[in-house]
């Protein structure tokens, strides 16, 4: 069963059609890098697959569930979006614990924080962390939350070389755990190392594909 199957998807935000009759097939276990200029609609496409947005026209299935069956889609998808989704007055440890509980999962938070080199900051409020540390904390969820389909928007933004390596390792870990991966990135040379199938989103359509 394909992980993602979209047919003729149109999506309008206000007057603009961001996605224009887009088709997409992603097999279960596959890893895809989504490329495109700023404003091409990469984040919008990820949000649509995660059921945060509704298509204006067209149809789609996520692991066989219709996109309109949002509850079933939510049960299968984990979106690490552009917004980091961190509570500034909770600590990294508390933020991760909250995410885990809301997903109904257990995990070794201390080990995940150590992997992200955040052990020393584990009990400081997130508002006092740097942008890079916040990004690493967000990515740490990859190590803790197992979902069949993982969508990641700009995993390398705000990260130094060490942080980018961490992002790659976490993405590899998610793949090894069996997750299907779709990554929207501006750094193809990095992302393609883990997600080797490249799709280019241009003018609201996936116009180019290469391996």
């Amino acid at each position: 069963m394909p992980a993602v199957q979209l047919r003729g998807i149109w999506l309008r935000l206000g007057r603009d059609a961001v996605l224009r009759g887009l088709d997409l097939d992603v097999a279960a276990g596959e890893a895809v890098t989504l490329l495109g200029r700023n404003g091409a609609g990469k984040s919008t496409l990820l949000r649509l697959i995660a059921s945060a947005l509704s298509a204006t026209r067209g149809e789609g299935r996520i692991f066989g569930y219709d996109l309109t069956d949002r509850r079933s889609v939510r049960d299968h998808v984990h979106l690490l979006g552009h917004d980091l989704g961190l509570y500034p007055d909770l600590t990294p440890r508390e933020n991760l614990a909250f995410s885990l509980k809301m997903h109904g999962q257990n995990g070794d938070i201390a080990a995940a924080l150590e992997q992200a080199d955040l052990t020393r900051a584990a009990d400081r409020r997130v508002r006092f962390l740097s942008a890079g540390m916040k990004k690493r904390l967000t990515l740490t969820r990859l190590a803790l939350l197992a979902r069949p389909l993982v969508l990641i928007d700009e995993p390398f933004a705000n990260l130094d070389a060490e942080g980018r390596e961490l992002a790659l390792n976490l993405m590899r870990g998610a793949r090894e755990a069996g997750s299907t991966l779709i990554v929207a990135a501006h750094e193809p040379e990095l992302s393609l190392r883990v997600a080797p199938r490249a799709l280019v989103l241009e003018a609201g359509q996936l116009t180019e594909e290469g391996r």
Partner: protein
Amino acid sequence: MRTALILALKDAQLAGRTRDTLLSTAFFAGLLLLVLGLGLGSGLGSEAAQLRPAAAGAVWSALALAAAVAAGRAFASEQEAGAFEALTLYPGPHGGLYLGKLLGTLLQMLLLSVFIVPLGLLFFGALGAGVAVPWPALALTVLLGVLGLCASSTFYAAITVNLRAREALLPALAFPVLVPVVLASVQATRYLLQGGWSPEVTTWLGFLALFDLSVIVISTLLFPFVLEN
């Protein structure tokens, strides 16, 4: 219910740490009581007794508007943290999110009521020497009334969270649903302050309990549609 408890616990933890919602609602409710009191000619002197009949109305007006502020903050804080969308994408039924936000808001509003109700009654001459206040019955009225205010405000706060003028729109949108709660709470409080427990109090509290239950059930069922549209 599990989602609701986790979310409410997180909100309570944040409220205890930042106190921004608690302080802003306390300031707002206190200011409203002061303005109403000054406008009606109150003070803490002998004239205050003349305003006793207005005490219940003043207290519940302050609590109703404070509940709208608190419920609005409950969702706005998610939006400000960039966590609102993530919250709507967690697995499980969305009704749990409504109940969690309701519980978080309710806890803060009950804490606020502990200070605002006696302060309002004192300011409007319904508390002090020679005035017997039936505290247990009043506490039950406050619990049911505040629950109704929070249940309605929380539902409408979710509708307005993505709007630019949400602070102004929330009380306006929630107003028709808040009116029955305020009326019933004011009547029950007034009868209690006049002569203690009576059949009228039973009737008004029964109405409040039924109204609260209806709003909570309907809002829980409708909440997924609110978030998805």
